[in-house]
């Protein structure tokens, strides 16, 4: 098994407009992979297409060399926080138990083992003390950790995280990136939709630059180049050089 996700000539359109144009790539396993691009670049659409949630115009998608419909159990999804109604009457542990649903038959209820697994995953993200809290009582960073625990409870090999750092303070961001690294070191592959360029070099092993078409994909240091980033962001970037002339930083205008 050499690739986690293999996408071949994928095109997707939304309401008659092209969202993803002829995307082809093969992603490695056991890596933290960042998906970067401007708003409307199709980042969320790409992960939804890989998970088989949006219809594709053309193209072929394989996950661990299998079709997606056979691999659903192995794919976990961590939603963008803005997509969740945090007034919903569920406790933290209820949310994590949902990660067990793909392992249950349609009539089965989560049992004792599933609850134990959920608790174990809450411990992994350091949220076990909050398990009886309603999900909305937590801070943004804590909520994100709970959803990561849910993905862990699913025992998947492939995780998709949609903007996990959006609206979260810096110390929580640090906790979460450490968690993601830990998960990668357990042998899993993580795709992270990300819009902030400042931490890219520090966070990701591989990088995908997306703007409806694939601008670049590969090892982070090969892709995170001003010229490619500028191409992805339609030229709306500035390169800042440090005083000694060695370091450089790319920011979106």
């Amino acid at each position, binding site marked *: 098994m050499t690739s986690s996700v293999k996408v071949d000539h994928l095109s997707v359109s939304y309401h008659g407009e092209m969202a993803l144009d002829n995307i082809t790539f093969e992603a490695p396993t056991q890596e933290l992979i960042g998906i970067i691009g401007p708003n409307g670049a199709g980042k969320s659409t790409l992960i*939804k297409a890989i998970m088989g*949630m949006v219809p594709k115009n053309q193209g072929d998608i394989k996950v661990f060399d299998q079709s997606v419909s056979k691999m659903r159990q192995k794919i976990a999804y961590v*939603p963008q926080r803005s*997509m969740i109604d945090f007034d919903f*009457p*569920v*406790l933290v542990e*209820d949310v994590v138990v949902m990660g067990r649903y*793909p392992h249950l038959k349609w009539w089965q209820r989560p049992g004792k083992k599933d609850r134990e697994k959920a608790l174990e995953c809450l411990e992994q993200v350091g949220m076990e003390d909050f398990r009886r809290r309603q999900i909305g009582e937590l801070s943004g960073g804590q909520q994100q950790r709970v959803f990561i625990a849910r993905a862990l409870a699913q025992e998947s090999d492939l995780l998709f995280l949609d903007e996990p750092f959006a609206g979260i303070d810096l110390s929580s961001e640090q906790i979460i990136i450490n968690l993601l690294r830990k998960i990668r070191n357990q042998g899993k592959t993580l795709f992270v939709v990300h819009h902030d360029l400042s931490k890219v070099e520090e966070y990701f092993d591989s990088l995908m630059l997306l703007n409806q078409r694939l601008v670049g994909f590969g090892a982070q240091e090969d892709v995170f180049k001003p010229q490619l980033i500028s191409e992805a962001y339609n030229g709306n970037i500035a390169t800042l050089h440090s005083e000694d002339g060695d370091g450089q930083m790319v920011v979106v205008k």
Partner: protein
Amino acid sequence: MENLNYFIDAVMTYPFLQNALIAGVLVGIVCGVVGCFIILRGMALMGEAISHAVLPGVVIAYMLGASFFVGAVITGVLTALGIGYISQNSRIKDDSAIGILLTGTFAVGVVLVTTIGSTSINVWHILFGNVLAVSRTDLWMTLGITVGVLILIFVFYKQLLLSTFDPTMAKAIGLPTRLIHYMLMFILSLVTVASLNTVGIILVVAMLITPGATAYLMTDRLPMMLTLSAVFGVISAVVGVYYSYIYDVATGASIVIVATLLFTLAFLFSPKQGVFVRWFRRMTTSKA
């Protein structure tokens, strides 16, 4: 106390009052439970639309001599499909699509009623209920719908919970979210038919939304919310029938008023969410 004894005597004596109470309790339970999902999915307006869309179905069924049941489900589900179709295939948003079809289908129902003449079918009873005329057959139908719907919700609880809380994950793990949506629309049509006699088409939305909303203010767990909602629905029905009998006022409206009062109490005094309680807590903490 005297009134209460009088009421209990009447319940013992008159089968029509027994039927009314049983029907009210069943409707309270089933509307309370279904209503929780309607609230959490933000579909209150959709509930309004489906319940109104049931009118032409009921009238056509009456004209053809068919069962109310079948007519109501057909027009209810067709309307749900129509709303989805309009909002997906044009720039018209969901709430506008609902507004158009809610009034449109209801108007068709009213026109049909006027063509067949008001002597054969009592519009007032369909619109506002006539709980004191609940027949044995009506009662069996209401019981059947209640039991059937509760079984459906019990069996598919896990799927309903996930698709309501996180539709994206639900889709990602392969749940048929669209089918679940239309199953709920189907259930809504059934529940409206079951409530026809008790509260009528116009007020059924209150039985769906108000007890659920009251329960929502009282708890942080869905199973508890479902239970409380059913309990509030039952209390509203029983107390509503009581007042309507004692003061000789419209039953459906009386039930809905009780439900609304319960909501008002929860809104003010719920331990966690109550407006008054939170205000009181702010006052005491700022002093301390």
